[in-house]
Every structure is written in structure tokens, then in C-alpha cells.
């Protein structure tokens, strides 16, 4: 009844197919060169997930090393960056499983202040102070809401809204069907709406 929009899956293979082919045949230098334009974006994605500079750097490094190990399996059905983000989300899930984060509210007063300072450092310098403060606050609230989702729902929200890929691209990156992505997207939005409303009410 509700057909999915037929969107041509954009691939970055067209940009430098030679580098990708060389990387897939085992050329480490070609792989590093191919990934270089994605590094900063990937790092920012990692920052948005964990909010910690050192951890985000480790996550981005580990993601690219993991991508190197399985670059032969990349088939171009989704954008290369979406594929990297799917690996990043998977690694982040493992990190969370290994070490559960401590909520800000449970930290001691000094640590609480430090954490807030660290979050505030991550701002857009181009924005006006008032606007920037509101934006930071709203984004922080939204990130807290997203963190409360299950890993599968978090993945699909992240890839749809922060990586901005098509349903087909997300399905290829997560190795599942478009129907599964649509189902997860619906349930994730429903859950996120409920969490967002309750968070807003509690903070007002």
C-alpha cells in the first residue's frame, strides 16, 4: 500500500573508484587516503554519540580500523560514510555494553560542573551567545532522549537524521530489509516522541 520512494542510492565510489578498488584489494595506503575526507565528519558523529573527546577519538579510530578489516565486504549499496557510521554505532553499542555511563545527576558536584563545562566547549562558535545556549540546551535534551532508545532504534534514528541517508541505504548498511528499517523508524519515532514530551514536562 505504501511504496517506498525509489531513491537512487548515492555512492561515493564514483568519486574515487580507483582508490576504493585498491583498498579492497589490500592497499592500506589507498584505504587511508580514501577515508581521509570522512575522518572529521566521523569524529563529529562519534562526539554526538558519546560527548567525550578522547572516547570519540578512540571510537573513530577503531571504526576506521574495523572498516579496513572488512572493506572487501563493502558492496556500494549504501554511501561509504553511512557504512562507516553503521560500524561506528555498532562499536559504540559495544562500548556502552562494556562500560555503562554514569548519569550526570549521579556525579559529585565538582565532576558535574566539569562535565557541563566539557559539553559547553562543544559549541558552534558562529552562533550568538543566547541562541547558542538555547541550541546547545535543546540539542543536549534531544541527545539525552535518543540515548534512552534501544540500540536498534537509536541506530535507525541516527542514520536517518544525522547521517541523512535513504531507507535503502540504511537497510544496506544495517544488513536488513527496507521494511525492517521502516518498522524500526516508526517505533523509534513513537518512543522518542513519548520520551521527549516527558523530558520537556519534567524540565519545565
Amino acid at each position, binding site marked *: 500500500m*505504501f511504496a517506498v520512494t525509489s531513491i537512487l542510492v548515492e555512492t561515493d565510489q564514483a568519486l574515487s573508484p580507483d582508490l576504493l578498488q585498491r583498498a579492497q584489494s589490500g592497499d592500506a595506503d589507498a584505504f587511508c587516503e580514501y577515508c581521509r575526507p570522512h575522518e572529521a565528519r566521523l*569524529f563529529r558523529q562519534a562526539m*554526538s554519540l558519546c560527548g567525550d573527546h578522547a572516547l570519540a577519538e578512540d571510537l573513530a*579510530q577503531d571504526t576506521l580500523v574495523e572498516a579496513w578489516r572488512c572493506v572487501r565486504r563493502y558492496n556500494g549499496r549504501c554511501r561509504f560514510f553511512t557504512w562507516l557510521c553503521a560500524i561506528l554505532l555498532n562499536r559504540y553499542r559495544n562500548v556502552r555494553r562494556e562500560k555503562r555511563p554514569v548519569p550526570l545527576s549521579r556525579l559529585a558536584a565538582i565532576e558535574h560542573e566539569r562535565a557541563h563545562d566539557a559539553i559547553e566547549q*562543544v559549541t558552534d*562558535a558562529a552562533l550568538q551567545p543566547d541562541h547558542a545556549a538555547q541550541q546547545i540546551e535543546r540539542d543536549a535534551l*534531544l541527545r539525552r532522549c535518543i540515548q534512552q532508545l534501544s540500540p536498534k532504534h537509536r541506530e535507525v534514528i541516527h542514520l536517518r537524521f544525522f547521517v541523512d541517508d535513504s531507507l535503502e541505504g540504511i537497510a544496506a548498511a544495517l544488513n536488513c530489509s527496507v521494511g525492517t528499517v521502516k518498522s524500526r523508524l*516508526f517505533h523509534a519515532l513513537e518512543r522518542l*516522541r513519548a520520551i521527549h514530551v516527558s523530558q520537556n514536562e519534567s524540565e519545565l
Partner: protein
Amino acid sequence: MNPCPENQKPLAWMAAGALDAPTAATLREHLESCPRCRQYWESMAALSARLNSAELPHAQLPDSFHARLVRKIHDDQNAAPVSIWLATIRQLWRHPGLATATAGAALALATLVWMQNFRENKVHTTPPMAVHTLREAAPQRIPPSTLATYHQAANVSLENLDAVLAREVAPNRPTVETFTFSSLLARSLED
């Protein structure tokens, strides 16, 4: 207020920009006449707009990042066989069905190897044991009697001569009577 059940999912997908244009157009027409669906749509559209406008942190990537990545990947390349094995095991671990099948295959292979070793050990150890057993179990062969044999037996005692003669008449007859269940049954029926 809940939306019309059949429109709930399409409205959420439309908010996320994941609905085809013709269906979205039909749904927009419906929204004009249905306040319940309109309320749901407005809340979903607001959430979607918040998600779309959320900024990624403008954190600066350290300059040394790329150099460290290159070093790490070259290190990984040098240790490729180990990492490939680890990656394979990790992949298998993520797919329970595949992991079970592999574990089954590994168990079958281990059993085959063990059986092979067991058989080889058996081949090496069996012959001496078998020879030993055969030697022990072989019936004593009595040499054929001659006149000298009878003389020798008679010199020992007349009973000994009787025993030699009796053995020659019935060499396979057991000297001690043995009882089996069937023989006892037959004897009891005779009585």
C-alpha cells in the same frame, strides 16, 4: 487523541521524509478533515524538525589523527592473519546459527581425528596382545602315543597308564563334568 489507526505509521514516515509523494499527497488531503490525525501529524512533524535541526558538535579533530590511523592500519596489516581469525570469530559470534553450525562441524572434525588416532593406536597395540592371547588360549597338543610312551607311563604307575589309554580313546572328553542350565534342566526332567 489517537490518529486513525491506518494512518499512524504513514504519518510518522511522512514526518521522517520516508513516504512516497502520491501517498503523502493523499494523506495531506485527509489531514484537512481529520483533527485527530492532524494533531498527531503536528507532534511528529515538530519532532522530526527538531531532529533535522540538531547540530553535530563542532569538535576539532586533532592533527595527529590521520598519522596515528595510518600507523594503526599498517600495524594491523602486519598482524593480518591473527586479526582475520579474530574478526572471523567475532563475526561468527554475532550469528548464533552460524556459530552453532561451526561448533558442530568443529566437534565432528575433532571426533573424526580422535577416532583416527584411536584406530591407529589400536592397530599398533592389538597384534602383540592378540598373539599373547592366542598363545594362552591354544589347546595343548598331545603328541601321538608310541610304545615308549606306554612304557614310560607304566613305569610311573598303572593308573597313569590307564589315564593315557583313556585319553587316547576319548581325547576331547572333559575330565571334569560341567553343568549348564540346559543340562541341569534335562537332568531334572529325566528324574
